[in-house]
């Protein structure tokens, strides 16, 4: 954008009012309910005692929670490190015209459209060494692979499954971002004698900054909250292990049918994600500003 400052216009609130109504209607009331539950001990539907921050304190002291939290961060980190570059590379190699573009678009998007429990189910069979292609191949290669017995294998399988399932999200966003770059930029770069790498670094990557930020935030959030796919795959983790934070919290809280701690866990979960996203968001904005100088705020 070439103008440095956006005009101040409080009337713009009218334009965002529908959005606020939609989301607030869906979000604020339930949120208030959750906060309400989180500070009470609900012994029975009619008997609820106010306990303040007792649930929150006990959660924060929980050692197992800390371990689960680190494992989850590692998972989300791995997801981002693999899916973002892979998605961008995929977007760069997808054709932009003709029937080929349409066919590739459809094939790439297929994995996104499968309900998550079915994804888990497919990989459940897929990973079995007796009847699944993936497991069978690994066994034939001499690897002692078992996602059922070995927590590390389970963790890695979920990672692979996630990469297979969600990289197309990054790719589609990056692809759309690439397609919006006007032809003139490439023409100018050609005239300036820029190398293919320079075109990527100075034109394509900067112009994809917006979509990449969305991709990073989305993938972080969704991978941090991941529940269905690993649950279906492992039925709750090999043995007693619970590699994923969501499983850990679900087991602890809902397994005991206790609304109070459950609500408290939900809030803490939310706050952790919020904090990381906030940090990521501001970091990416600052990096972008230093580079491009045109932040959208």
């Amino acid at each position, binding site marked *: 954008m070439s103008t440095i400052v956006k005009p101040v216009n*409080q009337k713009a609130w009218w334009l965002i009012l529908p959005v606020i109504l939609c989301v607030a209607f869906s979000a604020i009331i339930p949120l208030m309910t959750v906060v309400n539950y989180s500070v009470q001990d609900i012994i029975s539907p009619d008997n609820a005692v106010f306990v303040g921050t007792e649930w929150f304190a006990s959660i924060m002291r929980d050692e197992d929670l800390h371990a689960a939290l680190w494992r989850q961060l590692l998972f989300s980190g791995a997801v981002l490190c693999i899916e973002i570059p892979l998605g961008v590379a995929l977007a760069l190699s997808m054709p932009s015209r003709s029937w080929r*573009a349409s066919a590739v678009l459809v094939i790439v*998007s297929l994995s996104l459209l499968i*309900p998550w429990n079915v994804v888990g189910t497919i990989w459940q069979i897929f990973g079995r060494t007796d009847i699944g292609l993936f497991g069978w191949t690994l066994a034939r290669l001499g690897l002692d692979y078992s996602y059922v017995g070995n927590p590390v294998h389970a963790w890695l399988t979920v990672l692979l499954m996630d990469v297979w399932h969600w990289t197309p999200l990054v790719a589609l966003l990056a692809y759309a971002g690439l397609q*919006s770059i006007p032809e003139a930029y490439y023409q100018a770069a*050609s005239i300036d004698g820029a190398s293919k790498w320079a075109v990527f670094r100075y034109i394509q990557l900067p112009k994809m900054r917006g979509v990449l930020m969305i991709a990073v935030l989305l993938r972080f959030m969704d991978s941090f909250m991941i529940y269905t796919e690993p649950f279906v795959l492992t039925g709750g983790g090999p043995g007693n292990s619970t590699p994923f934070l969501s499983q850990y919290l679900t087991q602890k809280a809902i397994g005991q049918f206790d609304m109070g701690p459950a609500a408290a866990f939900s809030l803490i979960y939310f706050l952790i994600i919020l904090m990381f996203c906030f940090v990521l968001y501001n970091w990416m904005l600052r990096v972008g500003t230093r580079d491009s100088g045109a932040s959208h705020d």
Partner: protein
Amino acid sequence: MTDRSFLPRKRTVFLVLYLVFALVPIYWMVVMSFKTNQGILAEFSLFPREFTLDNYRLILSDPSWYMGYVNSLIYVCMNMVMAIAVALPAAYAFSRYSFLGDKHVFFWLLTNRMTPPAVFLLPFFQLYTTLGLMDTHWAVALAHLLFNVPLAVWILEGFMSGIPREIDETAYIDGYSFPRFFLTIFLPLIKSGVGVAAFFCFMFSWVELLLARTLTSVDAKPIVAIMTRTVSASGMDWATLAAAGTLTIVPGAIVIWFVRHYIAKGFAMGRV
């Protein structure tokens, strides 16, 4: 035309490799759908030993199965239209104007996606029961706005901010009214963003299970909920699930097919 292929030969190899990677599990699912349960569990085979269409026959003939697809399609399309319609003006506001609290509201929108939907189950259940909207398509369509609207706003805003303000100003100087400018000039310029936002709204709503299952019982039961029928005390009905899963891909593939012109080869900046 300018050749901007990034290492063309390697690019094609990489693309083909990825496409294979993407298709193999899908191939696996499709193969499973043509087997029987015994066939799946008995042995490893790349191709069905006993090829059967029974799974598809079951789904396509039983209304309690195929109505699931219809229901899902209804509320997903409703949601997609509403989300985009509401997100477009908001994204424009965030992109073009600065106003009190704009940065905070923008970030707040995204926070609605930061909670596992399980948190909202009980409150939503109570809310929609009170409103008398339980087991309707409207309930699910509205509930899904929670996570789709922020996503649509974020995506659209990103694309809109890529269009220089001079385009807006030149159009006003040329005498365009705002609606005419928005529809005939602005939207075509951001059509990649609209295409991808629409597809994502479709996709996230289509696959969402928890809310959709909680808010419906009979009339509006979506396919994602019906598919869980395959898990029962007598074991998993893998084959039917695979067939249902394969059929699930079809509407989404059609949607992508329709928006492909929007996503691919965005409008190049031409004469204003």
